[in-house]
């Protein structure tokens, strides 16, 4: 995972991956029939890590603030590889591409639930959920894809700017919440 995060999903060489794992080059292919199988396994593991972390950190019907913080935290822990997935998604094999949709499905489910709880039962929503969610995602992805402009030299742009983005988004959607 580390090699793909550093070199890129499509650029990471299997020889370097084998070297990093301390195994012979051929051993990689004893576990994964093709490079594509290896890439799909890495992306699937990334998806599992991000969504598992979100579930762990948002357990107990917490509010939108806790949920957004949990989302940011899960991304911080996998930031470089996740950013590669966002940037290279159109280039990777179709079966790996859907992992990003899966991750966002989990996040949007939790965001929708939290908004529902905070808006109060039966209160009509002013803005469509998908636009609210995409606004949040657009913010995060803009910072991730241009980390060199927002946090040059830092290991994590979201560690530095995540709290500000959370506060800003909560201010934006204040009318959607009754807390």
């Amino acid at each position: 995972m580390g090699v793909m995060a550093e070199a890129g999903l499509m650029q990471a060489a299997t020889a370097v991956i084998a070297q990093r794992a301390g195994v012979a080059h051929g051993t990689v292919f004893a576990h994964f029939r093709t490079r594509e199988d290896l890439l799909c396994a890495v992306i699937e593991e990334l998806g599992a890590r991000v969504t598992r972390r979100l579930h762990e950190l948002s357990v107990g019907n917490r509010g939108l603030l806790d949920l957004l913080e949990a989302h940011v935290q899960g991304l911080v822990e996998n930031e470089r590889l996740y950013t590669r997935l966002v940037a290279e998604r159109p280039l990777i094999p179709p079966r790996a591409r859907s992992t990003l949709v899966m991750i966002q499905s989990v996040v949007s489910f939790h965001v929708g639930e939290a908004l529902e709880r905070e808006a109060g039962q039966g209160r009509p929503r002013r803005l469509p959920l998908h636009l609210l969610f995409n606004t949040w995602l657009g913010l995060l992805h803009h910072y991730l894809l241009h980390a060199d402009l927002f946090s040059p030299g830092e290991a994590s742009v979201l560690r530095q700017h995540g709290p500000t983005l959370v506060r800003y988004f909560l201010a934006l959607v204040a009318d959607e919440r009754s807390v």
Partner: protein
Amino acid sequence: MQPKTCIACGMPMSRPADFALGDVNKEYCVHCARPDGSMQSYVEKLQSLTAFIVRTQGLDERAAREGAAAMMARLPAWKDHPAGSP
């Protein structure tokens, strides 16, 4: 201990309310159950998951359906379901 995971959508089920009919012995979640508690069919789940993705992420319907089918293909309930068949 890791919570049980729904075999039909992959959602972790940590509270009784997450399970179909609140029955913690069930292998699928409240979102994958019909009103009588039985598990939705492949076609029902594909439709509901597609609609969910469109509603929450705003994707084009065809892209949402492809994403939903790809997600379902990894889950135990649908692993043996032939790709592209209803």
